[in-house]
Structures are given as structure tokens and as C-alpha cells.
């Protein structure tokens, strides 16, 4: 029921990137406002499939707003407005015929602060499959296990699935949130500064996990940590005051940036 509206049948894919990976999102001339305050200005970029795309930039540059457009969760914020085009697998994301709920089934999200529900570990992962009625009973159990394995958390929690999720450490909670997002089998995972509340060891585990998830999912990560972007991402975009200053292969952006502002930012001269 939800898959049909998103099927990528009638419209062909927009031009692909240099790596010849088909695009998942094609953003064209995106502009966003909160009330009268403009936060995104004429941003265009293409997010390739099964790669990690990082968005970097100083605080308040609009990077969170940008990825929050991709699952239309900004719709929930009073006073939010956008113009321009976002194509998700060739289809206009704000097409009135598309229910935003079904977009979120395909485009999952992990937030800055780990936000597990105050329920058991099991119930957290089972939440999505339950509301979408994807699996039941025994199959749901298997599915919860599979999702927790994908998030590299299974071995740590398999003996305490009934325990309240809030008893886990911050890093475990964040991996649980990843497992919860993966449990509805999305194609894309948006990560909004997923490690900013975590210590270096927990951060390392998450980064390792992201590299693994790349095999199967398209990942978009917002981070203010440039080293993190350099370590995990394939493509990087540099956002400054709502403008996309530069976008390209991570290696190139960090070694031979094309714009002096990018260079100033990555060498730590501001931000």
C-alpha cells in the first residue's frame, strides 16, 4: 500500500554523480524559511545511492534544516515554508498525492540526542513494524533481532530485551535508535549529528556501523565534526549561512577545496 506511491517507474533518474551511482535525492533550488527568517538559500545537490553524504558547516548554517526537508519532518514545525524541488527517486517529494507518512517509511532518521521511547528495548525496535503492521509475533521477534544485529547492538542487549531502553548508555541508546529506524526497512537513513552527544569510543562504534550500513542504505549525515566527515563520508557538502558553498567527493573537498571559504573552514579558521 505504501510502496506503490513511491515506486520509481514513470520518471527516469536525474543525472547521476561522477561515481555513476544512481541518485536518491536530487535537490534543486531549495529555499527554506522559518517565518520570515530564511535558513536555506538556493541549494542544489544530488545525493547518490548507497554512499555516505556528509553535510558540514558551522552551527546555524542550516544543515539540520536541509536534511530535515528530506523526510518532510519540517512540515511539523509551525511557520516552516520551503520552495524549490526535492526529487526522491525521481518523484517530487511534496507531491500532494504522496502521504508524508509513507516518505518516512522509506527515509528514516536518527537524531542528535538519543531519543529512545521510555519503553523496553524490544518495544523500541518493534514500534515501527507494529504501527505499519509489517510483522507479527514470532516473525516480529526475528525482525527485532535482525534490526538490532544490523545496528551492532544485539550482543549487548540480547539478554535484556525487556529492560527499559533508558537504562542503556548513551552510545547504546543511539545504536538502539538506529536499530529502531532500520526496523521499518527504509532505503535512506538521515543522521542529524548522531555522535555529538557521545564520547569518542561510542562515536567510533557508530562510525564503524555507518561504514557497514553503507552496503545497503543511502546515508546522509550532518556533522559539525570535520574529521568525522572526512573519516566516513564519500561526498561532502559545505554549507555556510544557508548557502551550499561547495559539494563534491570528500577527498577532494578536504585536500583541494575549490572555494576559499571552504578552505578557511576546514583549516579551522572559523566555525
Amino acid at each position, binding site marked *: 500500500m505504501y510502496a506503490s506511491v513511491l515506486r520509481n517507474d514513470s520518471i527516469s533518474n536525474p543525472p547521476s554523480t561522477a561515481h555513476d551511482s544512481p541518485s536518491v535525492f536530487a535537490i534543486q533550488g531549495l529555499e527554506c524559511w522559518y517565518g520570515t527568517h530564511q535558513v536555506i538559500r538556493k541549494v542544489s545537490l544530488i545525493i547518490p545511492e548507497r554512499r555516505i553524504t556528509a553535510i558540514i558547516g558551522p552551527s546555524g548554517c542550516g544543515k539540520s534544516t536541509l536534511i530535515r526537508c528530506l*523526510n518532510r*519532518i519540517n512540515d*511539523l514545525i*509551525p511557520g516552516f515554508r520551503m520552495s524549490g524541488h526535492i526529487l526522491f527517486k525521481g518523484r517530487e517529494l511534496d507531491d500532494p498525492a504522496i502521504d508524508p*507518512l*509513507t516518505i*518516512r*517509511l522509506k527515509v*528514516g*532518521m536518527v*537524531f542528535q*540526542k538519543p*531519543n*529512545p*521511547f*521510555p*519503553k523496553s528495548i524490544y518495544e523500541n525496535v518493534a*514500534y*515501527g513494524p507494529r*504501527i*505499519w503492521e509489517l510483522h507479527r509475533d514470532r516473525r516480529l521477534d526475528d525482525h527485532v533481532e535482525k534490526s538490532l544485529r544490523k545496528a551492532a547492538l544485539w550482543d549487548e542487549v540480547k539478554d535484556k530485551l525487556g529492560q*527499559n531502553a*533508558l537504562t542503556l548508555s548513551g552510545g547504546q541508546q543511539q545504536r538502539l*535508535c538506529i536499530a*529502531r*529506524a532500520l526496523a*521499518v526497512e527504509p532505503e535512506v537513513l538521515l543522521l542529524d549529528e548522531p555522535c555529538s552527544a557521545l564520547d569518542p569510543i561510542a562515536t567510533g562504534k557508530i562510525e564503524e556501523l555507518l561504514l557497514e550500513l553503507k552496503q545497503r542504505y543511502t546515508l546522509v549525515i550532518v556533522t559539525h565534526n570535520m574529521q568525522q566527515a572526512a573519516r566516513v563520508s564519500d561526498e561532502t557538502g559545505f554549507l555556510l549561512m544557508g548557502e551550499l558553498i561547495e559539494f563534491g567527493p570528500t577527498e577532494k573537498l578536504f585536500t583541494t577545496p575549490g572555494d576559499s571559504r571552504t578552505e578557511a573552514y576546514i583549516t579551522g579558521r572559523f566555525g
Partner: protein
Amino acid sequence: MEIAHQHATKRRIGERVISIGLACCGGLSILTTIGIVAVLIVETVAFFRHVPMWRFLTDTQWTPLFANKHFGIAPLVAGTMLTSTIAIAVAMPLGLLTAIYLSEFAKEGVRQAVKPLLEILAGVPTVVYGYFALLFVTPLLQRLIPQLAGFNALSPGIVMGLMIIPMVASLSEDAMYAVPQGLREAAYALGSSKLQVSLRVVVPAAFSGIAASLLLAISRAIGETMIVAIAAGQQPRFTLNPFVPVETMTAYIVQVSLGDTPTGTLEYNTIFAVGMTLFLSTLLLNLFSLWLRERFREQYA
């Protein structure tokens, strides 16, 4: 240096005076409570010197003001439970639905306009509710239920429910509104509808606050006096039939207090025994509410 030292000493004395003053204010209310409980205990003990505890607990008749005296608390407890149960049956669904609407569905402007209105409802004197029950709701109900007596438990129970809706709604709404936005976003990001977010995430997360608001509301219904004294009748009757006159514990205390019962008599002591029962039941409820809150304490800050 010397001046600075003097300043510091002066400030220290000032701080001390203030802290002692504040402690006195706090102590006053504690002492008052202790005084009330002490009087209750003394008079209750005096009562039980004449009436054995087992008769108080097992007798099914309450007739201390008649020649043939019986001292069974059961009819008064039944009356109280009956009216309170009806009240909470009205207030719980309506109050919770109001809270969910205000917290999750209403626009911010609506929420800010409706909440104070709700609190006005809580400010209506209960005697007004009492006469509203007796003179409006009862006749209205009698058209639907012909066997309904002029004094009954149903009508004051319903009106009491209406009275405590604002309390349930307002306190539950506070608890729901306090659920971190991050939890809602997490649920929306998984494709939940607004109703699913409200019922599956917000309400469970706010459970402790909601339960506490309900227990407080029950406590309020048990302690409510004017409405039941006016509209429920004053006939202690051991029944759970909502259509006939009953008497609650509070209404009995009013009845005796308004009469000319001399102090020191057994009749006079009965109101303390009833008061003690009332006090213990609300105390238990409040403790239970506290325990619930501890048990389901939200661990997210």
C-alpha cells in the same frame, strides 16, 4: 579589608535571619497538620473506647443519631465510593481526551485560550454545583430514569465528575506537554500519524503524571462535601444502587456539625472517627500516587 569583613559578617547574619524566618513559615504548616492529626487521633480513640473497632468495620448500619444506635461505617464508605466512582467515570475519559486534544492537536493559540477557561470551571463554588445537581441535573435525569429518587448518588456523582474534569485535564495536559519533543519527532520519523504519536508515545511517556492526576482527582472526589451534602440525600444506606438517596462520609460530618450535638458525647465523637477514615483513605491514595510517580518516574530530563 576590615570593611569587607564587616560586610561579610552582616550578610551572614542577614542570611541566617531569613533562613530561620523561612523555616518558621514551613514549620507552621507542618505543625498545623500535626495538630489536626493529633485531635483526630485523640477523639477517634475516645470513640473507639465506646464502640469496638470490629463493629465499626463490620456493622452494615449507621444510625448514631437514633435511639437504636449502630456504628457501621460501611454505608458511608459505600456512599462515598459510589459517588466518587461515578465522578471519576465521568472525569477520566473526558479529562484525558481534553488533555490529549490540548496537548497534541490544538493550535498553540487555542491551547492558550482554553486552559484558563478550564481553570475558571475549577473556580466555581461547589455549592453552586450542588444546587446545579439537585435542581437541574436530577430533574433532567428523572425524565430518562423514572425510578430515580429526588436525592440520589448518580446526579451529584456526574456533577462532581464535571467539576474535576479541569483538574484531570489540566494536570494530565501538563504531563503530556512536558514529554520531550524529541520523542514525538522520533515517532513521526518512523511514519506515525498524529493519533499514533499521541496514544502510543505521548500518553505512555506521561503515564506517571496522568496517573497522579487521576489519583488526585479521586482524592478530591472523596473529600468533596457540598455537592453530595446537597444532592445525594442524608440517608446512610448500604447500597451500590445509584438511584436512591445515600450519605457520604463528608455529608455525615456536615449533618452532625450543623446539628446541635453537644461536644464530648459519643455522637460528637463519631464525626472524628468518620473524619479519620476519610483522612486515612485520602492519605493512602496520595501515597499510592507518590509510589506510582516514583515507579514510573520519567528518566529523561
